[in-house]
C-alpha cells in the first residue's frame, strides 16, 4: 500500500525525473510535543485543584488565598486545557503532518520558532494574569486586551507559515486534513477578533464594547465555535492524517470526508445560540440555534464513522496496538459528544441540563476523550518515530489506556448523575405548590459525593498521563533524535494544465488561498445570520425606563465581582420557568442588561442565581456571608473572601472607567468622571452606616472598613436586578 517516492513522480504528469532532496523539520514538532505534555499536566493539575476546592473549600492549601480561589482557578484551568494543552497538541500534529502531506519542509524555520515561543509566552502571561484577577470576565476569552493582541499576531505568524508551506508544496492535491487546518485558522481568527473587541481602561483592564444581550450573543457565538474550531476541526484534521497512518490504510471514504468538511464548517457556526436557550435572547435566534445544532449530528457522525471504518479489517491490530486503542476511543468519544451536544440543544432537554454539572460532564467527554486520547495516541505514535526507535513499553501504554478510560468514566458518570439530580431538585414542587428544596444549598449538599468521585476520576486520568511521560522519556533515551528527516520528491510541474471538465471543487482543492476564502465566506454567512439582527437594533434595544447605569461604587463592586470570577459559580439570568421565578423572582428581561459591559449571565449554577439578589438580604448578611460563607450557610462550598476586608478599594482608574463607559454609550452625565469619586464616598458611607445600624460594626470597625473593597461589592450585590422592582414600587 505504501508507495515509495519514485512511484509518486512517475504518476505526476509532466514531471521531470529530477528528484529534489530536502528534510522535514522534526525539531519544531518535538518542541510542541514537549509543550503539549507539560501544559497538559499543568492544566489538568489546576483542574484537579478546582475539583478538590468544590469538596474541600476550607483546605488550608487555598483557603483565604485570593490568587488560588475557585473563581480564578477555573478560568486558568479552562484556558490551560484549551489553549495550552490542546493548542500545542494541534500545532504538534499540524507541523508533523503538513510537511509530509505536502512533501515539503515548513516554509520558514524562523516563523515556526516565533510561533512556538510566542505561543508559550502567551500561555505564561495567562498563567500570571488570571490568578491575579486580570480578566475580561468573558468565558474562554478571559485574557486581557494586550494578550489578545499578542494572540492575534502569533496566530497570523502561524497562518502565514502554513499558507506559504502550502504554496511551495510538491503534492498537487491538498489533502483533506489540511482543509480542516485552513478552516480552523481563518475561523479562529474571525472569532477571536470579533469577540475580543474591548475598550481599554488601563493596561490590565478593559470593558467589552458589546453590552447585555448582544455581548451574550457574541460571546456564545465565540464560545461555541471555540469548541468547534479549536477543539474539533483541527483535531479532525489530525484524525484524517494519523488514523490512516497508524492503521496503515487509507481513510474509509474520501468522498465522505469532503462532505464532512464542508457540511461541518458550514453548520457549526450557526449553533451558538443553543447556549442561550430560555434566556433574554430573541426566540427566533434560539430556534435557529436549535435547528442547526440538531443538523450537526449528520456531518459529525459521518466523520466519526469515516474514522472508525478506516479501521475496518484492522480490528485485530487495535487489540495489540495502544496507539490505535487511544485513537478508537478518541473518535468514539467524539461521536458521543456530538450526539449529546445536539440533544442538549433541544429546548426541553436544555431546560433540565443547563446550568448543571451535566454540561461539565459533556464537555469532559470531549476534552478528556476526544482531545486527550487523540493527543496521547499521536504522542505514542510520533515520539518513537522522530527518535528512530520503538516505544519503551507497550504494556505501560496499555495500562495508561485503561486507567485513562476508567478516569473518563469516573469523571463523567457522576457528573451526569449530579446534573440530573440537582436539576430535578431545583424543579420539584410539593402538593401545595411550594418548592420542596427552597434552600438552594440542600441541592448542593446532595451532590457533594458525586463531586468527590469526579475528583478521583480526574486523578486517575492524570496518573495515566504521568505513566505516559515516563514511558516516552525512557523511549527518547533509547533512541537518537532525528532533527532533520531526509526526504525527496519531485517538484510540481510549473505549467499544470487542468483536465477538461474539472469541477469547481477540484479547482479549489488545488488553491489554498481560494479555499481559505471559501471557508471564510461560509462561516461569515452563518455569522451574519446569527449576529446581524442584534446589531441592526443596536440603537433601539428596548430600554426599560427605570433601568439606570451603575453608581460609581456599584461599578467598582462589579469589577471586583468580575475579578473574583463569581460568574464561574453564579448565573445572573432567571429563566421564565415557574421553578425559577418562584425561587429567584421576576425572570430576566433583555432591557435590564443594556449597560452590562461585559454581560455576566454565567453558564453554571454551583451557587444560586444572583440576578434578583439585590435587597433580598441585609447588608450585614452579605458582610458576614462573604467573610465566612459556612458560618451563614452551613456546608456551603462557596470560598471565603477575607482579603476583600483588607484591600483598600483602588479608585485611581475610576474616571477612566466612567469615560470608557461613556464612550460605549452608557449615559453618565457630562463631566461625571470628575464627580464620581465623591459620590462613591457618599454611597460607601451609607453602606457602612447600615452595617453599624444593624449592629455588625462598632465605630472603630466602621472607620476601618469604609474604604475597603467589600463595601463596593455589597453595594453592587444590593443593586442587582432591583431596577425593575423600583418601577413596580413607583407604580
Amino acid at each position: 500500500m505504501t508507495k515509495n517516492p519514485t512511484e509518486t513522480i512517475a504518476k505526476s504528469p509532466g514531471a521531470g525525473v529530477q528528484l529534489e532532496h530536502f528534510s522535514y523539520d522534526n525539531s519544531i514538532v518535538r518542541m510542541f510535543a514537549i509543550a503539549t505534555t507539560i501544559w497538559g499536566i499543568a492544566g489538568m493539575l489546576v483542574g484537579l485543584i478546582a475539583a478538590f476546592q468544590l469538596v474541600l473549600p476550607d483546605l488550608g492549601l487555598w483557603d483565604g488565598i485570593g490568587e488560588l480561589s475557585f473563581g480564578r482557578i477555573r478560568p486558568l484551568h479552562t484556558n490551560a486545557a484549551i489553549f495550552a494543552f490542546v493548542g500545542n497538541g494541534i500545532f504538534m500534529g499540524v507541523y508533523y503532518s503538513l510537511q509530509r502531506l505536502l512533501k515539503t519542509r515548513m516554509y520558514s524555520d524562523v516563523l515556526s520558532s516565533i510561533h512556538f515561543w510566542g505561543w508559550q509566552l502567551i500561555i505564561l502571561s495567562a498563567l500570571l494574569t488570571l490568578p491575579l484577577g486580570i480578566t475580561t470576565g468573558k468565558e474562554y476569552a478571559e485574557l486581557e486586551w494586550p494578550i489578545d493582541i499578542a494572540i492575534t499576531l502569533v496566530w497570523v505568524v502561524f497562518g502565514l507559515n502554513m499558507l506559504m508551506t502550502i504554496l511551495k508544496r510538491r503534492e498537487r492535491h491538498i489533502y483533506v486534513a489540511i482543509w480542516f487546518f485552513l478552516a480552523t485558522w481563518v475561523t479562529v481568527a474571525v472569532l477571536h477578533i470579533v469577540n475580543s473587541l474591548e475598550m481599554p481602561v488601563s493596561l490590565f483592564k478593559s470593558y467589552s464594547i458589546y453590552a447585555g444581550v448582544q455581548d451574550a450573543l457574541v460571546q456564545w457565538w465565540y464560545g461555541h465555535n471555540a469548541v468547534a474550531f479549536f477543539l474539533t476541526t483541527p483535531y479532525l484534521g489530525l484524525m484524517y492524517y494519523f488514523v490512516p497512518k497508524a492503521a496503515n490504510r487509507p481513510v474509509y471514504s474520501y468522498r465522505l470526508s469532503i462532505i464532512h468538511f464542508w457540511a461541518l464548517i458550514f453548520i457549526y457556526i450557526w449553533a451558538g445560540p443553543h447556549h442561550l436557550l430560555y434566556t433574554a435572547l430573541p426566540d427566533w435566534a434560539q430556534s435557529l440555534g436549535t435547528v442547526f445544532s440538531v443538523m450537526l449530528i449528520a456531518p459529525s457522525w459521518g466523520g466519526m464513522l469515516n474514522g472508525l471504518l478506516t479501521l475496518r479489517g484492522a480490528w485485530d491490530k487495535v487489540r495489540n496496538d495502544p496507539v490505535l486503542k487511544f485513537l478508537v476511543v478518541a473518535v468514539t468519544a467524539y461521536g458521543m459528544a456530538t450526539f449529546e451536544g445536539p440533544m442538549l440543544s433541544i429546548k426541553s432537554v436544555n431546560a433540565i441540563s443547563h446550568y448543571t454539572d451535566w454540561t461539565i460532564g459533556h464537555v469532559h467527554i470531549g476534552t478528556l476523550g476526544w482531545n486527550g486520547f487523540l493527543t496521547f495516541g499521536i504522542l505514542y505514535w510520533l515520539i518513537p518515530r522522530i527518535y528512530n526507535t520503538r516505544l519503551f513499553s507497550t504494556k505501560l501504554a496499555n495500562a495508561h489506556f485503561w486507567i485513562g478510560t476508567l478516569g473518563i468514566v469516573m469523571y463523567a458518570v457522576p457528573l451526569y448523575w449530579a446534573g440530573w439530580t440537582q436539576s430535578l431538585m431545583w424543579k420539584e414542587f410539593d402538593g401545595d405548590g411550594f418548592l420542596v428544596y427552597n434552600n438552594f444549598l440542600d441541592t448542593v449538599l446532595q451532590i457533594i459525593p458525586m463531586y468527590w468521585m469526579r475528583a478521583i476520576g480526574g486523578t486517575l486520568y492524570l496518573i495515566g498521563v504521568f505513566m505516559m511521560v515516563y514511558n516516552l522519556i525512557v523511549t527518547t533515551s533509547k533512541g537518537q533524535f532525528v532533527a532533520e528527516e531526509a526526504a525527496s520528491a519531485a517538484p510540481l510541474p510549473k505549467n499544470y494544465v487542468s483536465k477538461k471538465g474539472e469541477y469547481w471543487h477540484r479547482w479549489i482543492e488545488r488553491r489554498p488561498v481560494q479555499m481559505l476564502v471559501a471557508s471564510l465566506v461560509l462561516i461569515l454567512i452563518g455569522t451574519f445570520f446569527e449576529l446581524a439582527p442584534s446589531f441592526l437594533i443596536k440603537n433601539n434595544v428596548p430600554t426599560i425606563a427605570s433601568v439606570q447605569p451603575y453608581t460609581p461604587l456599584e461599578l467598582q463592586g462589579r469589577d471586583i465581582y468580575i475579578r473574583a470570577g463569581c460568574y464561574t459559580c453564579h448565573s445572573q439570568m432567571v429563566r421564565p420557568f415557574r421553578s425559577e421565578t418562584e425561587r429567584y423572582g421576576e425572570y430576566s428581561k433583555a432591557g435590564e442588561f443594556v449597560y452590562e459591559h461585559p454581560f455576566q449571565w454565567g453558564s453554571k449554577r454551583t451557587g444560586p442565581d444572583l440576578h434578583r439578589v439585590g435587597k433580598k438580604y441585609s447588608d450585614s448578611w452579605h458582610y458576614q456571608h462573604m467573610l465566612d460563607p459556612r458560618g451563614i450557610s452551613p456546608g456551603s462550598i462557596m470560598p471565603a473572601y477575607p482579603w476583600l476586608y483588607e484591600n483598600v478599594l483602588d479608585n485611581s482608574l475610576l474616571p477612566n472607567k466612567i469615560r470608557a463607559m461613556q464612550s460605549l454609550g452608557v449615559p453618565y452625565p457630562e463631566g461625571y468622571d470628575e464627580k464620581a469619586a465623591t459620590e462613591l464616598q457618599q454611597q460607601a458611607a451609607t453602606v457602612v452606616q447600615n452595617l453599624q445600624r444593624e449592629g455588625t460594626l462598632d465605630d472603630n470597625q466602621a472607620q476601618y472598613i469604609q474604604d475597603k473593597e467589600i463595601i463596593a461589592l455589597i453595594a453592587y450585590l444590593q443593586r442587582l436586578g432591583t431596577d425593575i422592582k423600583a418601577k413596580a414600587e413607583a407604580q
Partner: protein
Amino acid sequence: MYKEVLRTVEGITEFPVLAILIFFVFFLILLVYVVKLDKGSVRHYAHIPLEGDEDPRFVSPQSDSKP
C-alpha cells in the same frame, strides 16, 4: 417586547427560512460534486498520507503489533 423591536427590522421573519434554504442549496451542490468525482483521483487523494518517507522498520509486517 424584544420581539416587537426585532419585527421592525426589515424581513426578520424570513431569516430562519432563508438560512435553511441557503444551507440546502449548498448541500445539494456539494452532494452532486462528490458523487461526480472520478474514482482514480479519489483513490490517489486518499493515499496521500501513506505515500513517501516511511521508515521500513515501521511498515514491516511486525508493525502490526508495534507499540
